[in-house]
């Protein structure tokens, strides 16, 4: 990952499930987007601090720390980064909190790929 070029179309993905990480990476790659995946919030936050990216995709349910906590820290480090939340469980309360914290979109797994790509493309174009 470290050897890859960080472009304006690079997207960071945080999920503790390896298979999910890989599948989202492939989906983004099929659209010609660069995806960088993280299993651990700390390394994600460290990377953001060094090299901010326009879009981060976060899983809500992770060990030791929730996606919402990562979202707060991330936005403090890089306020212009847009956050897309993914969750395996639809929870209106969590969705509301995430939106209040400034999440740009909220997807419940499994999600529709066209809608997902459309949102990513829109966010990229607006960030430019």
């Amino acid at each position, binding site marked *: 990952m470290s050897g890859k070029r960080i472009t304006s179309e690079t997207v960071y993905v945080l999920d503790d499930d390896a298979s999910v990480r890989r599948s989202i990476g492939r989906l983004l790659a*099929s659209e010609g987007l660069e995806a960088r995946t993280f299993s651990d919030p700390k390394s994600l936050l460290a990377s953001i601090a060094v090299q901010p990216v326009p879009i981060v995709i976060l899983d809500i349910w992770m060990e030791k720390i929730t996606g919402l906590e990562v979202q707060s820290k991330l936005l403090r480090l890089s306020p212009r980064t847009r956050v897309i939340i993914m969750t395996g469980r639809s929870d209106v309360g969590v969705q509301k909190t995430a939106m209040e914290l400034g999440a740009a979109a909220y997807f419940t*797994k499994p999600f529709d790929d066209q809608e997902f790509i459309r949102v990513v493309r829109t966010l990229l174009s607006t960030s430019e």
Partner: protein
Amino acid sequence: MEDTVTGDGWAGASVRGLRRGDSSEIVQHRIDRRVLSGAFLVFAGYYVGAQVGFALTLKPHAVSVLWPPNSVLLAALLLTPPRQWWIMLLAVLPAQYLVEIQSDVPSRMVFCWFVSNCFEALLGASCICYLTKCPVYLNGLRDLAILCLCGVFLGPFLSSFLDSAFVVLNHWGSDTYWGSWRIRFSSNALAAITITPLILAWAGEGMTLRQRFSRMRLVEAGGLLLILLTLGYVLFNKLAPDSDPALLYTPLPLLLWAAIRFGLRGATTAIAAIAFLAIWGAAHGHGPFSENTAEESAIYVQLFVSFMSLPLLFLAALTREREGIRKTLQEREERVSLAAETAHLGLWTIDFERGKSWMNEKGRELFGFSPNEPLSREVFLSCIHPEDRRRINDAIERARTESQTFEVEYRLCRPDGKTRWLISRGRYLCNSRGEASELLGVALDVTAQVTANLELRSQQEELARLGRVAVMGELTASLAHELNQPLAAIAANAAAGKRFLAGGTVDLAIFSELLADVFADARRAGNVIHGIRHFVRKGEEVKCSISLNDVITEVLRLLHSDFLGRSTTIETLLAPQLPLVRADPIQMQQVLINLIVNSLEAMEEISPAKRRIEISTHISEQSVRVGVRDFGVGLPSESPEKIFTHFYSSKPDGMGMGLAIVRTIVGAHGGKLTAENLPDGARLCFSLPIENSSKQPFSL
């Protein structure tokens, strides 16, 4: 029991007295009347006896062969309570005077005879009452032997010394002391052997002749007596003195007939008749005993009657004893049959030595045997359900060679095609050589009980299953997450593949990885579904040897997402080499999940940083103990174990069934469930007994 049998005995009178304590005056009056009528009978009997004694005197020296009065008095004493003996003795005094006054005997001599006669009867009666239970009804060989020893021998033997002394001192008659002693002893002994048993036998069983004997029996008895009297009359009055002595034995078959068919009453009556006729003949100078002097004839008659009587009396007593035993056995058998009938018990015996078998009606109905079908172990086994046959055969064989008894529960396949559940208990009886000779047993139909138990078990299983469905409902969040992760990955991979194809940029290596991931995720989702279906499936409980550590690991994997969702840390402290327990794995999972969910719920109000569950296992005596400790709000302080009761819930929307089901499951596995409050939380524990085979692992 005896009171009712011996309706005429004094026991009946005294018992009636006891039962009617408040009307003792009436009872006293009744006893007095009984005693008075007894005293009158003694008076009359004594007088008549004396007259008979005089009549049976051998002339010309007036040698008495049979002297009945003393025997009448002895029988009266044996039938009267000792405290009333004096009344009987007093009744004898006027009879004695009445008898002797006609013979011009001085009153001093009369009184002396009264004393010696009373002494004889008192001596005999005292010894007999001391040695056996009074009143004496001659119910067995022992009674008869005691009567012969004390009443027939000892009483006459000792009292004759006194009597002869009185005769000599009063200068009465011309006999010498020893001559007088010999005549008195033999005549009194003969009377005691013929008259006393006659009275006792007839007094014994009350006057229920008609009830006891049918018309045919009465005709038989009458005919026998008639033949006996005719034969006796011909034999002892009409036969020439020089006839063949063998003819004297002709009454023997009739006497045996009387003893065997009519017992002691028949024997004593026949003996009395023969004795009377023999002595009568001798006294009147007829028959085989008339040829000698009076003294010699007296001795011959006495010896003849004595030796004829003794074996017959004992034979009759033996018959009566046997009859008593037979009656007792019959009563016992009736009681057992009644009990068996009431309890719907099948009873059976198989006698190996005689090759006979028996089974009561209920048993034959139960097993479907026809009334006369012979029984054997093979016949029994052929009715038993094939799956149970081997086990039953082993139990019976073990009983035959080792323990002598067995108890088995099995299914019976009846001829009508229905299956019944039975419990059988059996016992082997051994012969004198210690070999099993007979098998006794009972069989009880427990089908209703077994059906009820099975129904109860199936209800409990269904309740447990519903409990699992309910707890699954509480875990939907984590289950959704567990399923959605692989489904999301599959969907994203499929979309990516489609897009790659559409863009015309097909990289086979990427495609290969993509498809491998899709395959793995599909399997992962399948496993989650399988786990849920397995957990809530309908099915009979299956107990097997399991390690509770494995169950805990499996449950933690299943609940992983829930712990994440609820930000709860799990710590495990599992004992290494935990012994196995015998349990249903699914039900054990259910127990653990319920306990963990309870802990999770107890920590909902606690800050996420403090949410922690400690799961531990350890060995405690003969059981494995599993503890689930949380750091939540704790249990109700007064009675922590209240949480295990049905419908108890601390949550407003809770049904309160989860922990109650846990208690039922743990109880059904022979385990225990406890709950306790600890600082900052609570601990719920359950323990299950260690499986026997795992206590001492087999090693060489």
